């Protein structure tokens, strides 16, 4: 094998691996990313049932119900629109009424958002950044979102 042939093999392999990688990345980006919406946007966009997205906002005061076994019902609001959410499982430690929350899941045919993942942060002053941004955009909330400490997100399925 000449030096040139060897180089061709090397470059060929590298190009093959790279094109596979680019293909995989493009496929994954078109298929597996999740958008983030506030209740108002969900209403405006008329999301199709079953399409996964992240819902962010505040847990409405007095909306949390834990009646049926391990399923919890609550309402997420961005101060202009509300969306009912149901979730089965253990909520994060700092899930509270009036606090920010991010839920991942999809709308059911009944118009209820079925979350399979609820995120919150271990910090009293914490407001999920996406929520803070949305609320600020709408001029509802002006908080100090300066808490950038080494807090870890707690996630619950």
């Amino acid at each position, binding site marked *: *094998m000449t*030096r040139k042939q*060897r180089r061709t*093999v*090397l470059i060929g*392999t*590298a190009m093959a*691996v*790279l094109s*596979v*990688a680019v293909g*995989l*990345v493009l*496929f*994954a*980006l078109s*298929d*597996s*990313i*999740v*958008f*983030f919406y506030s209740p108002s946007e969900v209403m405006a966009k008329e999301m199709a049932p079953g399409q996964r997205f*992240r819902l962010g906002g505040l847990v409405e005061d007095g909306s949390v119900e*834990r*009646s049926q*076994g*391990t399923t919890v019902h609550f309402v997420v609001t961005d101060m202009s629109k509300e969306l009912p959410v149901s979730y*089965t*499982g*253990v*909520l994060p*430690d*700092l899930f509270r009424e009036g606090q920010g929350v991010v839920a991942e899941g999809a709308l059911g045919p009944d118009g209820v958002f079925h979350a399979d993942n609820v995120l919150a942060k*271990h*910090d*009293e002053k914490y407001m999920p*950044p*996406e929520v*803070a*941004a949305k609320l*600020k955009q709408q001029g509802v909330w002006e908080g*100090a*979102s*300066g*808490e*950038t*400490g*080494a*807090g*870890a*997100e*707690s*996630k*619950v*399925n």
Partner: protein
Amino acid sequence: MIAETGHFALILALAVAVLQTVVPIFGARRGDARLMGFAVPAAQAQFLLLALAFMALMTAYVTSDFSVQNVYQNSSVAKPLLYKISAVWGNHEGSMVLWVLILALFGAAVATYGRNLPPTLQANVLGVQGAIGVAFLLFIVTTSNPFLRIDPAPFEGLGFNPVLQDPALAFHPPFLYAGYVGFSMAFSFAIAALIDGKIDAAWARWVRPWTLAAWMCLTLGIAMGSWWAYYELGWGGFWFWDPVENASFMPWLSGTALLHSALVMEKRDALKVWTILLAIVTFSLSLVGTFLVRSGVLTSVHAFAVDPARGVFILGIMAVFIGGALALFAWRAPLLRQGGLFAPISREGALVFNNLILTTACAAVFVGTLYPLALQSLTPEKISVGPPFFNYTFVPLIVPLLVAVPFGPFLAWKRGDLAAASQRLFAAACVAVLAMIVVAALQQRGPWLAPIGIGIGIWLIGGALSEVAFRIKLFDAGRAEVIRRAVNLPRSAYGTMLAHAGLGLVVIGVVATTAWRVEDITALKPGESTEIAGYTLRFEGVRESEGANYAERVGFFDVSRGGEAITRLTPSKRHFNVEGSATTESAIHVSWRGDLYAVLGDPLEGGAYTVRVYFNPLVRLIWLGALVMFFGGGVSLFDRRLRVGAPVRAKAKVPPMRLADAK
């Protein structure tokens, strides 16, 4: 007074670092031995000054000196001593001091043990190391001073984030940083080589131990972080593909590639340009990791608005070092002529394949981590890229590499024989296929890919063991001969075996947990029980109790299996009074089959509690495997031929040729 001493030491260290950068590099250009020699005491002095600053900050924490703002914000009197100490690096300012301390430690090590390095190389290396120190010390002194006072001093601090009050997390940052910052050595050596225009196998012999040491620390640091997330965050996952995790995983991937390419360079004098580039890229990814975690972009793009100075400063540091290094690379790298020809099927070829896959996989992780940030800053859309993205990209890319790993050590340098290698791996392949069949037959549920994954893990372990077995002629020679060969086998061969076998353990653990984990969420009243994976958990009720700085509610679960009592699990919920927040403490029963993992949830109406139980099969293998990889690196590090500061044999003392004429 102590805080002021620390502050003063920081500023002095900055001044020393400036001198350490300017004087030796200038000396190296002039060929002035005295100016070059200045690098050694400067690097040692910088380390001592930073050690003093670090001790001052730690003293302030241990004595709960709340007149120091940093202590006030991150500590409290009642906190246990271990967490008073770990709080030093559990916040932005303190962790940056630890960062530069470790940087200076590496610099001082090269100064102290690098006496047999060519003087210009040592001077340039310490100069570059000093420059990194200047940038980060300037960052600390101007934007993140940990020694600011508040007047009047408060009586009690604000406390320390309770989820961080944990033994594994106390040691996670130092190891992670030792890994990140350790790659600065490879970077400094690369830049020094580019400045010199000279590079040879001796260069690789010097760089490899540093890279290996950094890689070991990073491996352990990542494993500790993953272990902590597993038991502390209460949902039993070991890896979330979270941007913060990816920030540490990217330098690990490219650092692993660097380890392997430095091997080619050391043994065969080939892949020089590529190795230099990888050294630059690896440390650049460490800087990107520091930037992602420390600037606040991950918590929110708006954190820039809160303290724009910090994010912009680190971005500036990154631009200077990464941009400068790549520019220097583009300018000087053509001087480095390639040596050592090799056939595609050869040890070199295998290591090139390793590098190709690792860097591509690293690039995929990079895209997945930064794409949401880019999109968010350029458009109003907010997206999150979660585990599915990485499962579609990273996993298919890395699997061919896992299959190829056992072949590498069996291929000869220059030109390998794939058929002979396959023959020697026949036993390992048989065991792996047998494992796949057995697992597939036993598997009642779970994806069809799972048995293949387990087979790949067994294949990695079997391949690693076969390599050593063949080299010591375990089955072909008499006992005396085998023992003689086993004793004489270089330690680095055992290191390779352990590292590759450890990787196999990780693969088995990841596949088993991902495919066969069982989860159960129920509401239980005292006296009721639930069943999972053959275990019966009977809920006995809860009790309230008090800890050092928290109040907790403990749930009691009696675990039995087939009517036989096994253990009692006590998951709890802790409420931290000072910090005003709560943590979930999971309870785990460990057996050889896997972990039984219980979490106590919120109280429901009628005296019931939400209870979450998991069974995670073989999950411990993930961290055990990482530990085995760590020890593999350690064994290799103490190989006689690689030992840091080992006297150079006469053969290696041939003066390095100018690269341009090296062939």
